[in-house]
């Protein structure tokens, strides 16, 4: 009898799909209920960031800054000085590149307890096109000393991460997205910053995925299993601090790596993993990422296929990585 994928690949299913930004909105409301020091700021994108419920529950703890992101970041830094825990909300593009110097000086260097919450990250923003599709944000944020960088994979994980960062002291970049995607993680999960999540144990190749690419990695794992390839899949939701132990432990078993992210291949998860491996355990690695280009208009699905960020591309990358293993 042939080995079915179910025997090597843990089964993940979903009954519902939601956008990760709605997970942020739900998490923000919950964080606000748990701690009255939590406040929120938004630069004219309340609906897009799903902040309505927090605002309805805590109107006096919300600050509408208008289309003025630099001022929003500075205000957030100032609010911490009175003991507040500010969550800023705007698109990922305007949360990072537009306000890099404000984050660098007033938040990161000043070590302020600001949570920079960024929606519509990456290609899956879709039709608005490359002006809004930032693919460099993880790199920009992880280069800042002291900044924690988190990119959760579905609604439940984004909600849990939002609650967790409110309880963590220090600056955080939380990245999420616009499209509706499968919900496949535990609704009651405890989110541990910096702790990778073992999605599926395997022996032939390690697939390290973040954000929307985790579900694609699961799809890829099923296809690989059908071909008799036993993929280990790990969700690296925290890009920084990186769970190097989990990465090294996996690679010692499998001997080859695929990294998968909705980001430029320069400066993202892949480069963080490569740095660990190059210095600790040199290993063949293949990147599933945008090949140093801007995006364009299109549906999220069309863009993910065109720019090589889907399950099929992960399968191909896994085979290339396995072929490079030294016997």
């Amino acid at each position, binding site marked *: 009898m042939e080995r079915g994928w179910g025997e090597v690949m843990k089964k993940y299913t979903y009954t519902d799909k939601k956008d990760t930004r709605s997970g942020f909105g739900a998490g923000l409301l919950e964080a606000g209920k748990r701690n009255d020091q939590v*406040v929120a700021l938004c630069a004219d994108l309340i609906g897009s960031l799903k902040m309505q419920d927090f605002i309805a529950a805590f109107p006096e703890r919300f600050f509408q800054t208008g289309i003025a992101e630099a001022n929003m970041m500075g205000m957030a830094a100032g609010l911490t000085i009175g003991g507040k825990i500010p969550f800023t909300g705007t698109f990922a593009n305007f949360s990072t590149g537009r306000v890099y110097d404000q984050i660098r000086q007033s938040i990161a260097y000043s070590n302020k307890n600001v949570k920079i919450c960024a929606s519509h990250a990456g290609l899956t923003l879709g039709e608005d096109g490359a002006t809004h599709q930032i693919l460099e944000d993880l790199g920009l944020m992880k280069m800042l000393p002291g900044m924690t960088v988190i990119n959760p994979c579905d609604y439940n994980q984004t909600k849990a991460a939002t609650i967790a960062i409110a309880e963590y002291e220090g600056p955080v970049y939380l990245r999420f997205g616009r499209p509706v995607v499968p919900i496949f993680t535990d609704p009651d999960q405890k989110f541990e910053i910096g702790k990778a999540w073992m999605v599926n144990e395997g022996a032939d190749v390690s697939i390290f995925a973040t954000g929307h690419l985790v579900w694609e990695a699961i799809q890829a794992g099923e296809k690989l299993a059908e071909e008799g390839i036993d993929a280990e899949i790990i969700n690296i939701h925290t890009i920084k601090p990186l769970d190097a132990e989990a990465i090294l432990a996996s690679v010692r078993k499998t001997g080859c790596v695929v990294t998968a992210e909705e980001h430029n291949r320069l400066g993202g998860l892949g480069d963080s993993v490569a740095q660990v491996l190059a210095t600790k355990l040199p290993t063949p690695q293949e990147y599933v990422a945008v090949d140093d280009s801007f995006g364009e208009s299109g549906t999220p699905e069309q863009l993910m296929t065109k720019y090589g960020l889907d399950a099929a591309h992960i399968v191909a990358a896994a085979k290339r990585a396995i072929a490079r293993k030294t016997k």
Partner: protein
Amino acid sequence: MTTDISELKNVASQVRRDIVRMVHGCQSGHPGGSLGCTDYLVALYFSAMKHDPKFSMDGIGEDLFFLSNGHISPVFYSVLAHAGYFDKAELATFRKIGSRLQGHPTTHEHLPGVRIASGSLGQGLSVAIGAAQAKKLNKDSSLVFTLHGDGELQEGQIWEAAMYAPHNKVDNLIAAIDVNGQQIDGSTKNVLSLGDLHAKWVAFGWDVLEAKGNDMESLLAVLAEAKSRTGQGKPIVILLHTDMGYGVDFMMGTHKWHGTAPNDAQLAQALGQLEETLGDY
């Protein structure tokens, strides 16, 4: 806290000596704006502000000050030291390796009295607004003060913040602008004209006051007036008309001493014009 003019002038004279000695000691830094803003910072820390040199980052129940034009760190550090935040002997470490007195102020080295890093211009007004909003949420009736350079007003973020504060009635905030008409490359008129500053701030919805920025009586009067106008729905801004380099004749009124250190002879000449009132560090 004092309103004794001669006492305040004595502090200012010593602070000015500290400034030129600190900048001379490391052969770098910004004496011009520091000398010009000395009287205002002395008036704030020794007269107008309710503050505690035991220093807590939250500053709850205290008035807060944010230096947005962080390059005038020498005056800030000297005033903090004389106000009791740290030992004035530490002023000798300014800009030297391993010092808490970095070239521009930072919280990174945990220097008491500093609540935000500044130096990259244009950010302090936003930070101050955030801190002022936090005070309101905390039902804390104390005030937030800031200082900005006039050249700094060329940064766009200033005007984002300037629009925000009146719209949201941030009326526990007293900003001040060091109007010395000079910036690194020359006069503000020549580099990028600021136009009618009074009218600009009025147009943005601020309550605008003006003062002679190197006249202690004028400063105490304007600060008393500014404090009396808080809580009335508008943020307040004071236009401080100062001379860059005030107190040292050859540094006055020119952008040339914005970021230049005096040599030994120039130091001696400057110190000859500034009475040692409280003892050099």
